[in-house]
């Protein structure tokens, strides 16, 4: 056999769970008949030490470089196989697992021979997928330059301290020359942290004195380009107009949120009714005021009860400082009775000793500020009282701040108006999670106290240091299943960047159009919906590519019987539900062939089209429950793609229901089974797709249409963006858009078929001939032909005054 790569298949007996149910001998013969397979082995338990040793031996002896294990759940076992077989040179992506036990043996009432026949089809699909694999070389990530800490947040110092303790050089990009200035103004962002100032100053001194630290004073951040290991950071200068350019291996963003004063609706006047930051400034400038000081924790009334805890801690801290430094001051804290007093037992005791009183008020009635008094309703006796004050101190309003938002945008962080910068994008396994696009620390991420900000800074530095240390040892490699851009194909349209939620995709040349994109492999999570959306097929998910999935579905579709359907299940929804159905021995219709996919969003429309082109009578996609996608909206993107295929099936004269998107919760395998049954019954009713010349011509047209850049671009416009709250409800002109989309699709459907026909014939053809060959009205064709002529794709030649059309080569 002259295969370029050597594919081995191992069948598992799995004790009583596979061997007696599946005719493994027949299965072995069926798999061996596949010319792409070089070796078939059968093990009692491939996954246990004896089985793994046999596999390693076979891999070394036969020189196998791809492996299919027909055993059980890939979700659980793939990691073990990858770890155990890495020493014999099988990297991630070169091993695939077919769930013979859970998707075949345990769930169907079939004879052992029929089980073997079903398993053989699934294995052939897996083999075809591996055969199409173009393994990426192991790429070390080079690390150049120091770590840049920017943003000017106070966490800068904690991060820098951590880095210098680990002997890593860093640049601090800050706004002022002296650290003392920053300490003086610290209360602007973190009021009520006086007890921390001594320690903070020690940290700042340690950082300032270190020879590893370079302190630069810069203006605004202009751009951040490059990728992990090699960033270029540009700032404006404070002195002249020349930009300041620095190179850094990694970037840590320390961003502090902004404290705003309350409005006049809370009586704020800046003199007697003030906020925490103003109270702190007052202590700095005029000392602790005497008289009755009342803190009102008004976060509930201001609409942010989630910040009341933080405000109460701040009030306690400032109040305590006041009492400790001025015996003539009386401190009262008013708090909404819905919240608990956030003090430890020791603090409560200290509070009693200092005479700080905590007074609850009934949250149902909003307290009212009057000159010198705060009226409130007591939650116990429901009587209105007045609290006298000389200074009323309110909670601040917290926001991200305009400058920080601008900086976050330059850093490529996702910013939403009025929202803090922290958000949880993907919910995937840690090894799939790339690092955060910029390690971020500080209260702009989410309101926090100084201690938490510094902790975040240290943590960001620790994570960065781990990467730097691994890179210095030459042990930092790009993850294998990440997106890569082919710069020769990329036109810089920016669609991928727009729908990418992991933040890995950046323009090469900074934020402007038409320059090719690139992917930071250390950030990408390998979700792959961006690759499936690329109009030019320039973006590929390496080691797990669209061509592999096409090969898989093609191999399966060619082998499917007239009533059998192909299906894709995502590892977090459909596949997991199918696995659990297997574990529970729930029986269902065997006419469904499920293929594994990491996220349903990885499925390019070309994969779906290929299934029909190669003979599948139906294709079912089983994803997660709605709004539950683990990879940023892959499920919603699939919805749009399925919609496109439905339109095209309609244009082909086929039933639109032959493709369907289903949702299955992994914990409810019966949902999965229900979805399978409905779909199988539907396809059985519709019958197989006739494989006559006309249908095949149209299916080829369908396949070409979904690979057409214009259609893909319009489809890309419909995909859910990370900032869209509701989907697909967020359609302003649903019907108008859908009609336009349909027009584009039908135009391109005609054009690709015309091109295909003219190219195939290779001779000048007249309109009548074209119309007859395509079985389409002449009126429909003539407009498209005109466009193709004016675009130079087709030549129009007149013979005997009749227009003939010829494909230009």
């Amino acid at each position, binding site marked *: 056999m002259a295969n370029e790569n050597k594919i081995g298949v191992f069948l598992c*007996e799995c*004790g*009583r769970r596979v061997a007696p149910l599946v005719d493994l001998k027949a299965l072995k013969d069926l798999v061996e008949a596949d010319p792409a397979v070089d070796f078939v082995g059968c093990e*009692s*338990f491939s*996954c*246990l*030490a*004896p*089985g793994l*040793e046999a596999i390693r031996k076979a891999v070394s002896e036969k020189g196998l470089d791809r492996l299919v294990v027909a055993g059980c*759940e890939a*979700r*659980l*076992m793939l*990691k*073990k196989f990858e770890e155990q077989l890495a020493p014999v040179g099988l990297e991630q992506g070169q091993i695939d697992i077919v769930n013979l036990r859970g998707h075949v043996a345990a769930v169907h009432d079939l004879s052992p021979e029929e089980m073997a026949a079903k398993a053989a089809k699934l294995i052939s699909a897996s083999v075809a997928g591996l055969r199409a694999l173009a393994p990426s070389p192991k790429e070390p990530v080079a690390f150049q330059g120091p770590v840049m800490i920017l943003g000017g947040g106070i966490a800068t110092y904690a991060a820098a301290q951590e880095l210098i303790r680990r002997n890593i050089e860093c640049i601090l990009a800050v706004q002022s020359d002296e650290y003392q200035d920053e300490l003086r103004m610290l209360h602007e962002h973190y009021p009520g942290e006086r007890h921390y100032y001594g320690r903070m100053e020690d940290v700042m001194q340690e950082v300032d004195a270190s020879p590893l630290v370079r302190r630069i004073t810069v203006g605004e951040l202009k751009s951040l380009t490059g990728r992990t290991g090699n960033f270029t950071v540009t700032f404006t200068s404070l002195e002249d107009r020349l930009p300041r350019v620095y190179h850094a291996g990694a970037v840590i963003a320390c961003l502090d949120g902004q404290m705003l004063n309350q409005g006049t609706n809370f009586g704020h006047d800046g003199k007697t009714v003030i906020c925490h930051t103003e109270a702190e400034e007052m202590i700095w400038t005029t000392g602790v005021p005497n008289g009755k000081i009342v803190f009102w924790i008004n976060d509930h009334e201001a609409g942010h009860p*989630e*910040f009341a*805890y*933080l405000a109460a801690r701040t009030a306690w801290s400032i109040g305590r400082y006041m009492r400790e430094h001025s015996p003539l001051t009386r401190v009262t804290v008013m708090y909404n009775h819905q919240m*608990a007093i*956030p003090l430890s037992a020791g603090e409560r005791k200290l509070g009693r000793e200092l005479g700080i009183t905590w007074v609850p008020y009934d949250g149902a009635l909003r307290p009212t500020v009057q000159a010198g008094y705060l009226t409130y309703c007591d939650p116990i006796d429901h009587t209105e009282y007045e609290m006298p004050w000389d200074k009323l101190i309110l909670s601040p309003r917290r926001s991200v701040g305009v400058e920080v938002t601008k900086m976050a945008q330059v850093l490529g962080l996702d910013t939403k108006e009025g929202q803090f910068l*922290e958000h*949880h994008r993907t*919910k*995937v*396994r*840690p*090894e799939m999670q790339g690092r955060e696009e910029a390690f971020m620390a500080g209260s702009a991420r*989410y*309101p*926090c*106290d100084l201690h*938490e900000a510094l902790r975040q800074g240290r943590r960001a530095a620790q994570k960065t240091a781990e990467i730097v240390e691994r890179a210095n040892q030459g042990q930092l490699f790009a993850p294998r299943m990440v997106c890569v851009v082919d710069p020769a194909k990329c036109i810089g349209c920016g669609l991928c960047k727009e729908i990418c939620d992991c933040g890995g995709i950046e323009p090469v040349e900074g934020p402007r159009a038409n320059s090719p994109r690139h992917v930071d492999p250390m950030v990408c999570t390998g979700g792959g919906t961006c690759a499936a959306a690329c109009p030019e097929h320039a973006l590929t998910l390496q080691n797990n590519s669209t061509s592999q999935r096409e090969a898989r579905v093609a191999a399966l579709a060619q082998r499917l019987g007239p009533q059998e359907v192909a299906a894709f299940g995502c*590892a*977090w929804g459909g596949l*997991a539900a199918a*696995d*659990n159905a297997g*574990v*529970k021995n729930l029986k269902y219709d065997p006419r469904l062939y499920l293929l594994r996919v990491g996220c349903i969003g990885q499925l390019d429309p070309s994969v779906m089209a290929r299934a029909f082109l190669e003979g599948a009578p139906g294709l079912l996609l089983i994803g997660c429950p709605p*709004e*539950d996608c*683990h990879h940023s909206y892959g499920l919603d993107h699939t919805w749009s793609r399925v919609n496109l295929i439905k339109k095209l099936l309609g244009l082909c004269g086929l039933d639109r229901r032959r493709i369907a998107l289903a949702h299955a919760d*992994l*914990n409810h395998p019966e949902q999965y089974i229900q979805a399978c049954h409905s779909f199988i019954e539907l396809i059985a009713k519709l019958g197989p797709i006739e494989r006559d010349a006309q249908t095949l011509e149209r299916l080829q047209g369908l396949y070409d249409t979904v690979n057409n850049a214009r259609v893909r671009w319009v489809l890309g416009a419909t995909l859910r963006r990370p900032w869209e709250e509701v989907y697909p409800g967020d359609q302003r002109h649903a019907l108008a858009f859908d009609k336009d989309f349909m027009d584009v699709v039908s135009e391109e459907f005609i054009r690709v078929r015309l091109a295909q026909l003219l190219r195939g014939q290779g001779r000048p053809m007249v309109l009548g001939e074209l119309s007859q060959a395509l079985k389409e009205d002449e009126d429909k064709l003539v407009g498209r032909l005109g466009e193709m002529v004016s675009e130079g794709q087709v030549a129009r030649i007149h013979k005997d005054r009749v227009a003939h059309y010829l494909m230009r080569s």
Partner: protein
Amino acid sequence: MVSFKINGETVQARQGWTVLETARQHGVHIPTLCHHEAVEPSGACRLCVVEVVQGKWSKIVISCMYPVAEGIEILTDSPRVKNVRRWILEMLLAECPGSKEIRALAAEYGVSASRFAAHHPDEQCILCGLCVRVCKEVVGVSAISTIGRGVHKKIGSPYQGPAEACVACGSCVTVCPTGAMRARLDAVRGEPKVKLAHGAK
């Protein structure tokens, strides 16, 4: 290579393999509950007991963790082994009467009732900790753990609320030998929720 006997048949094994692995390689069935190939064995359920005969004396060991040794003789279905398994199954029946998997397994060994008192008639969990090990070793998040000790021991997430670390992959449900995790998963994964302020109680 080490050579020893399983049920009278001489088998070859490599140093470091366990008795269970070698037995399965040779098609000898040993029942297990807490054993899963994806994670390291932990010996929690004790159901995989076998009898090791060395010379004149013999002992009962768990096969999932017992390393092979030259010259030993393993009996996987001796009367003594069966007796121990019946005892274990009786205890499991009392601990989780709600599990039909355990009932089926017990019936295989002729155990239909338990002499121990069952306190929780609907309990399905045998506390083997397989879900916890999968969450840690395969998924890598440790969203669940065992909570409490002794009779108070149970499986759950920190503070018994939805676990922040949980990625809702369902691996715990797939490996669970009794289906107990299925009922617990919703409490662990929770609904996607607004995050509270740092340090909020």
